[in-house]
C-alpha cells in the first residue's frame, strides 16, 4: 500500500516523542538515593546548609524554593495568571532588596518552582507531591480556586509542609483539621455578610432578599452562610435557589425571582454567569434596590456589559483603592508590614502593564506573609515558621491578616475583611468602580438602583 511510508514515519515520530518523554521523566524513575523512610518534616534545607554553595558576597546567600502550581490552561487560567504575577512581583521585590535577611546575616534568596495543573485536581495532587519530594521546595503556595487549593492542601498536609493558600476562600477546606495550611482569603462565609450590612445601612425599608447561587462548591457555601446571617438581621429570604453551572440563559430564572418580588438579589457564581445575569437583570428591567454578585463585579472586564454593570455591588478581597496604611494599622493597634498600596499598584502596573486584581494582591500577600514569618522566626524551620504564623496578626497593603489557632478551624483566616465595590457612573457618565463598604474603607457612598 502506498500509505506505508507515511505510517512508518508517523509511528517514528510518535515513538521518538515517547522516548523523549520517557527520557525527560527519567529523574523520576531514578530518584536520588533517599532512605526508604520518607524524609521527616524536620529534614528541611535549614539543617543542611553545607549542601548549598555559599554566594561570593560576604553575607551568605542561600536559596529557598517556593513551589506552587498555576493553571496555565483550563477554566482557572485568568485569575491564576494574575495570582502568579502578584507572587512574581513579590519575588522581584525581595530579590532587589537582597533577599530575606536573617539575623546571622544570611540572605535567603527565594526562587519559584511551578507547574501547570490544567485546573485539575488529580494533576494538582501529583504535582504537589513532585514539588515536595523531588523539587524539595521549602514552602508551598496554593493554586488558584478553592477546589484546587483543597486538593493541594491534602498533599501538603500529608507531607507536613507549610502552605499558604490564596485564591481559595472555601470554609470547609479549613475545617478539615489541617495543621500546616494557612488561609489568606477571607472565607466564603463572609462574602455576603458585608453586602447584607450595606443593604441594612442603605435602605432600612428593605425586607426581602433573594439568594441565588451557582450549583458548585464555592458559591453554594457562600450563600449557605449568608442565609442564616440575613435571617438574623431580620430579612426574609424569599428565594434560595441554585442554578446549574452551565446555565447561559437566565430569563426564566429571572421570572422566578420576579415572582417573589425581592428588594435585593445576592449571590451568583463566577464570571460568565455573573455577567450574563447582571446583563439580563438590566435588560428585563428587574426592579430591585440592590444586586450583589460574587466574583464577577470586581473584574475590570465586567464593564463590557455596558450600562447593565451600573449599581452592581460585588465583594472583593482587595481593591487598588483600599486605604490600608501604616496609619490605619496604628489606629487599629496592629503592626504594619511591607509594601504600601500605592507602591504595589504602581509596581504591578510597571511590571505587567495591567491593573492588579485581588488575585494579584493575594499572590503578593502570600509571599509577603511567608517572608514576615521567616523573618520573625529567624529560620526556615517549619516548626518555627508555623509557630510564628500561628501568632501572626498584622496589617499589610492587603489588609489585616490573622489565622485561627483553634484545632477545628486551624489556619482559617479570621481577620481579613472583604471590601465591597459598586459600579457607578461619574460626573462624565463614565462607569467605574468605587469602594462602598465597609465605612472605614469606602471611597464613595453606595447607590440604590432606581
Amino acid at each position, binding site marked *: 500500500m502506498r500509505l506505508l511510508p507515511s505510517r512508518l514515519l508517523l509511528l517514528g515520530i510518535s515513538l521518538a516523542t515517547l522516548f523523549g518523554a520517557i527520557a525527560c521523566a527519567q529523574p523520576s524513575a531514578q530518584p536520588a538515593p533517599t532512605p526508604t523512610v520518607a524524609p521527616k518534616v524536620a529534614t528541611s534545607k535549614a539543617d543542611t546548609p553545607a549542601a548549598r554553595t555559599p554566594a561570593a558576597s560576604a553575607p551568605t546567600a542561600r536559596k529557598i524554593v517556593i513551589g506552587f502550581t498555576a493553571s496555565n*490552561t*483550563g*477554566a*482557572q*487560567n*485568568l485569575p491564576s*495568571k494574575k495570582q502568579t504575577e502578584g507572587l512574581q512581583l513579590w519575588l522581584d521585590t525581595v530579590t532587589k532588596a537582597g533577599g530575606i535577611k536573617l539575623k546571622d546575616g544570611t540572605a535567603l534568596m527565594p526562587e519559584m518552582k511551578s507547574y501547570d495543573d490544567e485546573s485539575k485536581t488529580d494533576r494538582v495532587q501529583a504535582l504537589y507531591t513532585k514539588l515536595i519530594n523531588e523539587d524539595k521546595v521549602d514552602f508551598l503556595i496554593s493554586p488558584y480556586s478553592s477546589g484546587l487549593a483543597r486538593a493541594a492542601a491534602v498533599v501538603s498536609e500529608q507531607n507536613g509542609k507549610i502552605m499558604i493558600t490564596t485564591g481559595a476562600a472555601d470554609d470547609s477546606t479549613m475545617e478539615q483539621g489541617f495543621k500546616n495550611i494557612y488561609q489568606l482569603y477571607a472565607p466564603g462565609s463572609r462574602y455576603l455578610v458585608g453586602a447584607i450590612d450595606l443593604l441594612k445601612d442603605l435602605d432600612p425599608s428593605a425586607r426581602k432578599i433573594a439568594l441565588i447561587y451557582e*450549583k458548585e462548591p464555592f458559591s453554594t457555601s457562600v450563600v449557605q452562610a449568608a442565609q442564616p446571617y440575613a435571617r438574623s438581621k431580620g430579612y426574609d429570604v424569599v428565594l434560595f*435557589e*441554585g*442554578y*446549574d453551572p*452551565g446555565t*447561559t*440563559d437566565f*430569563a*426564566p*430564572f429571572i*421570572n*422566578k425571582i*420576579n*415572582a417573589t418580588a425581592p428588594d435585593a438579589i445576592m449571590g451568583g457564581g463566577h*464570571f*460568565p454567569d455573573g*455577567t*450574563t445575569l447582571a*446583563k439580563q437583570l438590566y*435588560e*428585563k*428591567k428587574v426592579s430591585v434596590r440592590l444586586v450583589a454578585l460574587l466574583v464577577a463585579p470586581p*473584574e475590570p*472586564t465586567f464593564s*463590557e*456589559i*455596558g450600562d447593565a454593570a451600573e449599581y452592581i455591588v460585588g465583594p472583593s478581597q482587595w481593591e487598588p483603592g483600599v486605604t490600608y496604611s501604616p496609619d490605619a494599622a496604628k489606629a487599629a493597634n496592629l503592626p504594619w508590614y511591607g509594601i504600601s498600596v500605592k507602591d504595589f499598584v504602581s509596581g504591578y502596573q510597571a511590571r505587567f502593564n495591567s491593573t492588579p486584581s485581588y488575585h494579584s494582591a493575594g499572590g503578593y500577600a502570600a509571599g509577603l506573609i511567608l517572608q514576615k514569618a521567616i523573618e520573625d522566626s529567624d529560620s526556615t524551620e517549619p516548626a518555627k515558621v508555623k509557630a510564628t504564623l500561628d501568632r501572626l496578626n498584622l496589617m499589610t497593603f492587603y489588609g489585616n491578616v490573622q489565622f485561627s489557632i483553634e484545632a477545628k478551624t486551624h489556619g482559617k483566616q479570621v481577620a481579613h475583611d472583604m471590601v465591597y465595590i459598586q459600579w457607578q457612573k461619574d460626573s462624565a457618565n463614565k462607569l467605574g468602580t468605587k469602594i462602598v463598604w465597609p465605612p472605614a474603607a469606602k471611597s464613595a457612598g453606595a447607590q440604590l438602583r432606581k
Partner: protein
Amino acid sequence: MNIDALSASIVDGLMIGFIYGLAAMGLTLIFGVMRVVNLAHGPVIAVGMFAVLLLAQNLGLNPYLGLVIVMLLGLATGIGMYFIAVHRVIDAPELTTLLATFSVNLMIIGIGTVLFSTSPRALDVSLGSVRTGAVTILGTKLVADLIAVIATVGLYYFLYRTRAGKSVRAVANNRAAAELMGINSTWILALSFGIGIALAMGSGSLLATLFSFTILSGTVYEVKSFVIVVLGGLGNPVGALLGGIVIGLLEGLATISPLPVGWVPVIEFGVFVIILLVRPTGLFGAR
C-alpha cells in the same frame, strides 16, 4: 404558580429555543449526511463567538454584518476541517471519527486558550426591548430568532430546491449510488461539513450578542445540542429547530415550576436518555 411568570417564561423559553435549535443544526446536518458526531462542535461555536467579537472590536463591524462573514469563514473552515481530519476516516467505525473530531476540539481549545485565555468576553449589543405586562422581549433575541428561522428556511430550501442540496441528500442517502451517478461525493461531503460548521459558527456569533462567553463556553451548547439533536431526530435539520424550541420551553417551564432550578438539567438529560431509548429517531423523526 404565578401567571405572569408563566407567560413570561413561555415567551422566554420560545425565544431561546430558536437559538438553541440553530446551534444544534450544524451538528445534526453533519450527522445526517455522514454519520459523524462532530465532537468539535462546541469549540467551533466558541470560535464563532470570538470571530464576531474580533470583527466588531477591530474592524468596528456591526455584529449582524459580522455574522455573514463569520458564516463564510465557517464554510471555508469546515471544508478544510473535513479534508484534514475527517475525509481519511469517513468509512471507519464511529469511534474513529469521534476521536478525529475530538482531536480537532483539543486543537481549537489549545490554540484558543493561548490566544484569548479563558477570560470571559462580552459583546455589548443593545437593540432595546418591547414590554407588555410581565413579558419583556429583547431586540437582540428577536433578531437572533429571526436569523435562526431564516437560516432554517434557507437550509431547507437549499436541501430540497437546489441541485447541490439534493446532491447532499443523495450522498446522505446512498453514497456509492451517488458516485455512480457522477456526483462527486467527496466534494459534497466536504460542502456539507462546511455548511454544518458555518451554521455552528453563525449560531456562536448570535449567542455572543446575547451572553458573555469564554473560549470554553461552546461545551455547554455542544452538550445541549446533543440533547436537541436527539429530540429532533439525528440528521433532521428542521427537527433540530423544533427540538431547540422544546428544550427552550422545557427549561423555561421547569425553571418557574415549584421544582428547584438545580433540577432542570436532571430533567433535560433525563428526557434525552429516555427519548434515545424509547424513540431513537426523535420526536419529529419521519423514519
